[in-house]
């Protein structure tokens, strides 16, 4: 083995964090068996959650977790974008604004006044926004948290210059392939699976729970039709609003559907 020349050196990977819980980055550390393979295939250049060593940019691949919530975030993501050949956002915060996008439905000043002793010290934006609202994003990986197998797939696809296999159809497709009995049909349990992006391998229905929508809207989400059926199952507007207003509250299709139930009187 000779030392690798610059041309054949491993791609430099950086992992960045914005407003988020760290859960998605931890999915990478959670790869256990595959972690050595990852370390063998890329040079981990910046990943504070895993190592203090810092290699300067530019970076071949940046994974970005978290949403944009402050003016400082806006500047920082622009700098990161400039240093990244490929930028992939991971998780509901980075792709839809996360649970913290609940602030988008209220006045942020009211919230800072309620939470902080000296709200004047708080410099924040009115909304929690996905990364793609501020910079160009090469690929968005959904999930709250992301699925580690999908993360490995995305990294592998990047390394080999191919498209990642991360289907955008409904959770129902995974649910049926898995052979789970539909909880909505057989137990009349409200399930967001039909309007939710696949990726979790239909985890909740396999444990007799309705889907919570962790992966955000699927490719062609017919949220209104699903809501109409949920009503037949006895779900009222306030619960409907909350169902669509969780980790992916800021995703367009879910945001609109939650708003449709906000002031609806039925």
């Amino acid at each position, binding site marked *: 083995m000779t030392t690798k020349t610059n041309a054949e050196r491993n791609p430099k990977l950086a992992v960045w964090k914005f407003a988020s819980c760290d859960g998605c980055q931890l999915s990478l550390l959670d790869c256990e068996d595959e972690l050595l393979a990852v370390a063998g295939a890329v040079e981990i250049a910046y990943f504070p959650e895993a190592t203090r060593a810092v290699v300067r940019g530019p970076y071949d691949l940046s994974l970005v977790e978290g949403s944009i919530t402050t003016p400082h975030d806006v500047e920082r993501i622009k700098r990161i974008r400039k240093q990244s050949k490929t930028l992939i956002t991971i998780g509901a915060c980075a792709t839809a604004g996360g649970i913290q996008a609940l602030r988008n439905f209220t006045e942020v000043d009211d919230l800072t006044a309620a939470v902080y002793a000296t709200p004047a010290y708080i410099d924040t934006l009115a909304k929690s926004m996905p990364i793609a609202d501020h910079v160009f994003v090469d690929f968005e990986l959904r999930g709250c948290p992301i699925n580690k197998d999908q993360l490995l797939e995305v990294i592998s696809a990047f390394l080999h210059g191919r498209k990642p296999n991360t289907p955008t159809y409904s959770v129902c497709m995974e649910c049926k392939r898995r052979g789970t009995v539909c909880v909505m049909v057989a137990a009349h349990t409200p399930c967001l699976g039909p309007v939710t992006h696949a990726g979790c391998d239909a985890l909740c229905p396999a444990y007799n729970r309705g889907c919570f929508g962790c992966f955000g809207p699927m490719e062609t989400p017919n949220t209104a039709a*699903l809501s109409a059926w949920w009503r037949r199952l006895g779900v009222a507007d306030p619960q409907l609003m909350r169902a669509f207003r969780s980790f992916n509250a800021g995703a367009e299709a879910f945001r609109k559907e939650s708003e449709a139930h906000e002031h609806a009187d039925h």
Partner: protein
Amino acid sequence: MDEHAFVLERQHFRHLLAALQERGYQTIGPTVREGAIVYDVIESDTDLPVGWGDIQDEGSYQLMQRAEAALFGYTLSPQSWKRFLHPPDVRLWQAHRTDGTFSITPAADEIPRCAFIGVRACELHAIAILDRVFLDGAFVDPIYQRRRAHTFIVAVNCGQASGTCFCASMQTGPAVDSGFDLALTEVIDAERHYFVVNVGTEGGAEVLNALPHREASAEEIAAAAQIVAATAEQMGRSLETANLKATLYNRSEDPLWDEVAERCLTCGNCTLVCPTCFCTTVTDVTDLSGAVAERRRQWDSCFTMEFSYIHGGSVRYTPKARYRQWMTHKLASWIDQFGVSGCVGCGRCITWCPVGIDITDMARRLQTADQPLGEAR
């Protein structure tokens, strides 16, 4: 019903399972799991849904305790035998990179010899359709072929139709006519619980001969025939098939398609539960190092965007186009393609559509729409 029928007493039913197991078959049949009667591996008759039935309607399924201890008192499971003959996810091959070249290893396809217990008439017709799709013509599907070649079929005549059944309209049931090794009709009267058995193949005869059985009397045969005849009167749904193909072709621009698209979630459930929908997608994956690649085949659906993706975008980008494609293929162009309808009237797409979209209702509305019909194709 065949005049040569036999009787297997209820208390001897377990011998049937044992005889099949002794012959090296994995016995797959109905069992209660996750609030439904599903097809899965069963060991003995205690695994069967003794005394259970089901109530099915659009978008709704419920288990129901029956008055008698019938083994086959339910109607249809959430998913069909397709799962076992045409599996939802299979690895086709793996490639390993070594020394600047690569070698391909075909996937080891371990196929258990399966005996299907409780196959209904519509399901036999569905298997016959899959046989045409996968085994006829120049391109035979080896995955299906290997599984199908080793299948032993114990069919059951339906003693009960569900709210979403319409096999009578499709002339695929409820009476079993062909495609089985053994066919049973479960008879329960005030004194007795027994099965009237018809033999379909030599293999079936061989298994039956290993069980305690006797020739059926004319009364027993009549009792069995009466049960199936009564089931034909219980169909929860119906479909008028005369001119249906022409109606679907002529009404491809009907506003009714917009209406159904407003309700359709494009979730794909209807296609995956359908016993005849056979579409798959092929996916190539690589590992991180690039030393191993593999190709997998998974069930796909005409309701996904990627299904009709060609360079530049999806051809059927509207939900309307996708629902229309599915229903028109199932009930019309399937006939042009394979010589039979793609629908056997099992009703699964109606029961398991999470928002209860009903293919028979849609057909009826198209058939009775106000606009005059154009020239039939």
